[in-house]
Each structure stands twice: as C-alpha cells, then as structure tokens.
C-alpha cells in the first residue's frame, strides 16, 4: 500500500478529482470515501476488460456505473466481491482499497471469502435459493455462525423490513421462495444481501428482468438504503442512474471516461463521449 491518504480527513483525495468544484459548503452531504479503486485493470485470460480505472466510492452514497454493453462495468463491479476468482484465468492488477480497514480487496492478502462476507451482491436476475423465504434470508447469517433461533428470526425480520418485503411475506416465511413474483424475489435477494450487514452492496442491473412497477419499488428501496450502506449499481437504464445515484461513472471499452456527481454528468458532462452516450447517440 502506497501513501494512503488519511481517510479520517473529510476531504479524501481520490486519484481522480471527482468534483467539478471542491466539496464545500454548497455540497449537500460530505461523504467519506468507502472504497477507492486505484489503477485497476482486469484480465479475462489475455483480454483486458477493465483498463487502468481509478475512482472513489463514497460511503452511504449510491454510485452508478453506466456505459454500453461490454464496457466493463459489470466486470468492475464483480471485482469488489472477488467473483472473478471463481473462474480460472482471471487476473487483477492495481488496487481496490476498502476503508477504514485499508485492505486491498483484490490484493493477494485479502481472502475472497472474507471480501464476500463484507461486500454483498444483488444479481441481474433474481436468484433466490429453492428454499423457504426464511432460509433464503437466514443463509448468509448461518454462514457467519449466527445460530440462535430468536436472533435469526429477529435479523431475518429486520432484513425483510429493510427490503420492504416484510408485510408481504410475514405470514408465509416457511413457503418456498419461488412462489413469489419476480419483483418480490428480487427484493428477497436484496434482503438476503442486507441481512449480513455488509459494508457495500453491489447491484448488477437489478431491475433489468423486472416490469416497471417492480422496478419502481426496487428504485425506491435503493433510495432508502443509501442512508445505511454504500451502494454500487450497474445499470443500462440511464434514467435509473439519474434517479437513484449520487455519483456516476461512465465507462467505455474498459476505460473510465468520466466520473462526477450524477447531476453534473447528466446535465453538463465534460467529455463529448459521455454526452453522446447519455443523449442516446450510441450504446
């Protein structure tokens, strides 16, 4: 680890300057940095899918990764919980520093299992286990050794409430998760990800398999969650990015083209490529 800036100071210095103006009195909220990507490259075998990307992720804020298909945004997201380690031939270069522990998520010293315990993920398609609703939410807790009946029940309820699903399922916790609708299944997966009290939650196009009403509910939920946890969201839907995120990074062909406050990106981007993309001229 080289010259890590002290995170306690409220103006962390990410490698790229994210703000068009310095964070000051006019900034609505000042977020400390939760994670910082530094010169990260990622290879699938010999193919370089993420090219020397650097950007910060602020605590208790929503950062959206946007860009056309194949731009490396999902690849970048999946670096955060070391999902790439499941498949042979993948390689990381650079760092993702997680604060305050300052551990390099993609470094050799970090255990993939530990990183997945600290960074939860919600996938593109709802993927509940073919078990009961209760067991789905409790599973992550069981993996962490939470065994007591009453504690499990309390934390499952808390997670389901947090995912705005409790009222709909409280009378059928023992029923199979596949009896739920697609949108409910996705909120169940969010509850499963929240139950373990992660430091970061990764959302990989969480609404792309859902109808507009279910999508709306998930977006509301993400809006609520930003009070409690750091969120990274990959999305194809630019309206979604502008609605739910505080910061937005635009990626293209594995490179990070522009990173800024979401309002700035969508109203006055500084790069012409970004402007072309958000105005729908390609992608």
């Amino acid at each position, binding site marked *: 680890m080289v010259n890590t800036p002290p995170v306690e100071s409220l103006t962390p210095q990410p490698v790229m300057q994210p703000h068009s103006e310095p964070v000051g009195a006019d900034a609505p909220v000042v977020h400390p940095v939760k994670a910082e990507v530094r010169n990260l490259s990622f290879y699938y075998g010999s193919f370089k899918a993420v090219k020397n990307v650097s950007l910060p992720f602020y605590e208790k804020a929503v950062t959206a990764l946007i860009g056309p298909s194949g731009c490396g945004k999902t690849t970048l997201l999946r670096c955060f*919980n070391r*999902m790439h380690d*499941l498949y*042979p031939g993948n390689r990381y270069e650079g760092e993702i520093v997680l604060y305050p522990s300052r551990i390099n998520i993609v470094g050799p010293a970090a255990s993939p*299992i*530990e990183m*997945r*315990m600290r960074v*939860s*993920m919600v*996938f593109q*398609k709802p*993927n*509940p*286990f*073919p078990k009961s609703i209760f067991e789905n939410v409790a*599973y*992550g807790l069981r*993996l*962490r050794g939470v065994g007591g009946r009453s504690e499990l029940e309390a934390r499952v309820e808390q997670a389901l409430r947090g995912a705005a699903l409790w009222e709909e399922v409280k009378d059928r916790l023992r029923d199979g998760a*596949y009896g739920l609708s697609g949108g409910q299944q996705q909120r169940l*997966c969010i509850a*499963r*990800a929240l139950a*373990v009290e992660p430091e970061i939650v990764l959302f990989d196009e969480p609404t792309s398999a859902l109808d507009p009403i279910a999508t709306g509910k998930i977006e509301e939920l993400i809006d609520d969650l930003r009070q409690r946890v750091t969120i990274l969201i990959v999305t194809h839907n630019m309206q979604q990015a502008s609605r739910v995120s505080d910061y937005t990074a635009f990626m293209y062909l594995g490179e990070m083209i522009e990173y800024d406050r979401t309002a700035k990106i969508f109203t006055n981007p500084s790069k012409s490529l970004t402007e072309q993309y958000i105005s729908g001229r390609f992608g």
Partner: protein
Amino acid sequence: MRPIDHTIRRGQLQDLIFRVLGVSLLLLCLGTLGVLIFNLAHDGLSRLDLKFFSSFASRHADEAGIKAAWVGTALIMLVTALTAIPLGLAAGIYLEEYARKNWFTGLIEINIANLAGVPSIIYGLMALGLLVYKLNFGRSILSGGVTLAFLILPIVIVATREALRSIPQSMREAAYALGATRWQVIRHHLLPYSAGGISTGVIIALGRAIGETAPLITIGALTYIAFLPPAPFSMMDSGHRAGAFSWLMTDFTVLPIQMFNWVSMPGEDFQANAAAAGLVLMLATLGINAVAIGVRYRMRRRIKW
C-alpha cells in the same frame, strides 16, 4: 385449390405420418416387453410361492427355490451401492466442481465415457485378477459387489455430473457471493438441488447391476449353493462365532446365475423354475425403476428454478 392449401396439406400429411410411425414403434417396444413378461408369467407363475423364496436350489425341480440367490443378489447390491455411490459421487463432484478444465481432466472425461461402454465381462476379468487373486478377496460377496460397483461407477459419475451441471450457475454465484466456501456451496446447495437427478441415476445404475451375470461368473460365483452367508455374530457350523463382516467373504450366487443354471437343465420343470426366477428378477428391476421415477417426480416438484 390455392397453392397455400397444398403446402398446408403436405405439412399436415408429414405430421400424420410421423405420428403414426412414432406410435407404432412405441407399441412395438411395449408389446415386446409385454409378451416377455406374459411369457415368463405364464411359465413361471405357478412356481411363485413363499416356498420358492425360502428354499435352496435342489435336484428336484419342485423343491428348488431361490433363497440363496435372492439373498446373494440383495447382499451383492448392498456392497455395490455402498461402494459405487460414495466413489461415484465424490468423483463426479470433484470433476464438476473442483477440477480445472485442462487436457488431463479432458482425458479422464473421455475415459469415463469409454468405461461406460466396456463389455461387462472385461470388468469380470479385471476383477478376477485384481480382487480375487491380487487382493485375495476370493470368490466372495465382497468381490462380486465391488466388481459390479466398478461396472456402474461410470454411470454414477456421469449421472452426478449431469445433475450438478443442470443447476444454474446463478445458484452457485448466489451462494458464493454470501461468503460460502466451495464445500459449503456443494453441501448446502448443489447436493440438495441435484439429489433427485443423482438418485435417479444411481437407482438406474443399480437396476443395471442387478441383472449382470457375466462378470460374476467370471470371478467364480457358484451356481449351486445351499447355505446363507453367516449373519453378523451368529454361531457357525465350525463352532466359531461369525464376525460382523464374515458374510462379506462368503461364496455366493445371484438370481441371474441361478436362472441360467436352471435354463441349462433338462426337463420342463426346471424351465418353469427359470421362468419364475426371471419373473422375480424382472419385477425387482421394474420396482427399482419405479422408485427412480417416483424419486425424480418428488424432487422435481420440490425444486424448480
């Protein structure tokens, strides 16, 4: 007539031809099986009574029974299952979930596929050399059971792999993303979700093993036997007390061998015995397959993606 009518008519005719062809071929297969069972029942049903199950083989056809044979078959199947299931499961899980895909695992894969097609008598020859002589298991239930386990091992491995492969990758990722280790993913998710497919494969493999004759004759299974393997800790004729596993090391015969023996005897009466034994074997196999279908049905209903 418009040309489009012609095209539609032709399509419908092809449809009809295929349907008729399919149904007649299906009936042909089922009919053959039906005739076979009917024939066995016609010849052997009169011999099927409790005494047939509780008598040893005999020179007198009407006193002969299948006691040694069905006990032998049951014990052999027990040994086969206890050997083939853990080995096959472990190999299948390893190949599917742990092994890296490289030329070596590719080679193993091709070999397993080939092993499934090796004639069973070759397994018998291998078992004769390896189990009976080299490992000194003798012509015992242990040798017989392990021989059949070798025989069905490829089927169990392939069934395990297929069942694991049918689980969507998203299930694995969901579990890994929560911090599960490889073994926890297998233990908590993959095995429960694939249990239906695996047990179907295992049961069908056992159904194949139950009818095998050649490899058991090769390792020297007896055709005439008038005693049962000693029950654990029972008193034997020699005055010694049997050990817990003495039965493993006893000589044995099995249903198909008993049947073969009777078929080769002169006289109508023994043919009736053979038919009766064949009927028992057939019903056992059908029963095993019915269990497989039942298991698959139950598991399918419980788990859907």
